[in-house]
């Protein structure tokens, strides 16, 4: 964990409201694990005040990437950054996905909804290096939400697409596609990230199929270091329900520990 005030942006890409920034941050890149995130300062002034937490989308050599959607003022400012500019970043923050030796030789489902695909690209790459087979599920409301489509297709991973309106891939929710596939195959694990409703539905599907799973959660954050206790969420731990910090105790939690809003 460290603060790099001079992470130079080396490349930017955009697809409508979705953006990707690549930056050079050798020390943070050396430590980064899939599922961890960066706290990025979006303004050199005080408005907006807080850093924005963004999952590490990819980590290669001395470079890191973040993939995000413009959802407010902070991400809008970040989307305007250009190659050559320097970012003030803090990371790698939090605890990432559990990569287990027994994944070797097994299929692992990686399910992302919209911008929720962000942490799964880095994850899939790491899964491959430990000899597991990532199977990607990528859903959106419509084709324009599948911003990373071409990037994913260029890999040798199996990719399953869905759109609510049928403009690309399976017509319907990504959760339906996962459910269908689970009737035919037996993955060792499922990792998910996306809208709450998607993750809650996936958690239920996994429970019914006895499929262990982990989800990466999102929250507004103060510090990203576990110091302010501003990003808590109810988590079931050892028989008790407690407010745990998404930044430090997560952002990745086992499916069975997460309390969903409908619970």
């Amino acid at each position: 964990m460290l603060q790099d005030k001079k992470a130079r942006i080396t490349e930017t890409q955009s697809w409508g409201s979705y953006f990707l920034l690549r930056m050079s941050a050798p020390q943070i890149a050396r430590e980064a694990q899939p599922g961890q995130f960066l706290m990025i300062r979006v303004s050199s002034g005080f408005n907006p005040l807080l850093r924005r937490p963004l999952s590490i989308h990819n980590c290669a050599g001395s470079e890191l990437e973040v993939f995000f959607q413009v959802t407010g003022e902070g991400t809008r400012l970040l989307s305007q950054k250009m190659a050559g500019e320097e970012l003030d970043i803090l990371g790698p923050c939090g605890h990432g996905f559990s990569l287990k030796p027994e994944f070797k030789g097994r299929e692992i489902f990686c399910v992302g909804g919209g911008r929720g695909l962000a942490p799964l690209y880095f994850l899939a790459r790491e899964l491959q290096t430990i000899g597991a087979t990532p199977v990607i599920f990528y859903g959106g409301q419509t084709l324009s939400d599948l911003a990373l489509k071409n990037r994913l297709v260029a890999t040798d991973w199996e990719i399953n697409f869905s759109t609510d309106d049928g403009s690309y891939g399976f017509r319907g929710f990504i959760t339906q596609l996962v459910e269908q596939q689970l009737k035919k195959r037996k993955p060792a694990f499922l990792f998910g990230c996306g809208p709450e409703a998607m993750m809650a539905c996936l958690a239920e599907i996994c429970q019914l199929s006895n499929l262990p799973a982990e989800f990466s959660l999102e929250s507004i954050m103060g510090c990203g270091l576990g110091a302010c206790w501003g990003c808590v969420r109810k988590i079931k731990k050892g028989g008790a329900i407690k407010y745990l910090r998404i930044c430090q105790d997560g952002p990745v939690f086992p499916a069975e520990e997460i309390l969903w809003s409908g619970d």
Partner: protein
Amino acid sequence: MVDLSSDLGFLRLKNPVIAASGTFGYGLEFQPLYDLNLLGGLVIKGLYLKPREGNPPPRLAEAPCGLINSIGLQGIGVEAFCQDVLPKLSLLQTAIIANVCGEEEEEYARVAEYLSRHQGLSALELNISCPNVRAGGKCPAQDPEATYRTVKRVKQVSPLPLITKLSPNVTDITSVALAAEEAGSEAVSLVNTFLALAIDLESRKPKLGNVLGGLSGPAIKPLALRMVFEVARQVKIPVIGLGGIFSSHDALEFMVAGASAVEVGTANFVNPLACPEIIKGLEDWAESHGLNRLSEIVGSLKV
């Protein structure tokens, strides 16, 4: 070499910069980022007798140049603190100050008493000013008499120097500061956060789970500065200033207004290196202004 030290009488700080309670966890969270021995001191997150759950999320909302929080003092309680955290903090060469909370007067006393039995603390900060734990943001620091009683009670049971942390959500903060002084508080720190509300217009719901929260950050700095100025003119005990300090110039303004030391809070989130950078900035400023001792500027406002 400029002398940055700040002599509070009961405690000599190596420099006037203290990390503020609630923004610095139990101290160790920032250890990966810099050497905590650089700090003048650090104030631990508020402690009750028992572990405490805190308020329902969302607990944070941004405001222009500010942050509204309603954490509600979630915490591990004094026992876990003294057993698991304090021994590690005791190894540091910086002032460790515990922030004492209570549901009522007696709990403040019992927390203070418990903490006083352990080695490693330089002082206690009495948190009678959190706006997030009682209905409507009420707190003892809104009433000079309640302040007097709580300070008096804590002083009876704890030999540790006491810094009473004041609320800005009052009509006349000097009357509360004077009450704390009269009851035996060795110092006052001010200000805690300003009671605030953030609304999500579309849902017409409050943005915070606990409805109201406390505003901090650059947005409150001029208000906090005014209150420090008012209080410092009235009390004889040292004043520790806080509220939106983000730079060494902010810290210097509080000192000129009468603060012997400062606490840095929300800035720790925005720039985790805020405290060491402010300390460096103080040294540079003192040097460039030909000061031998930085404390010369305390209360030097020309009015």
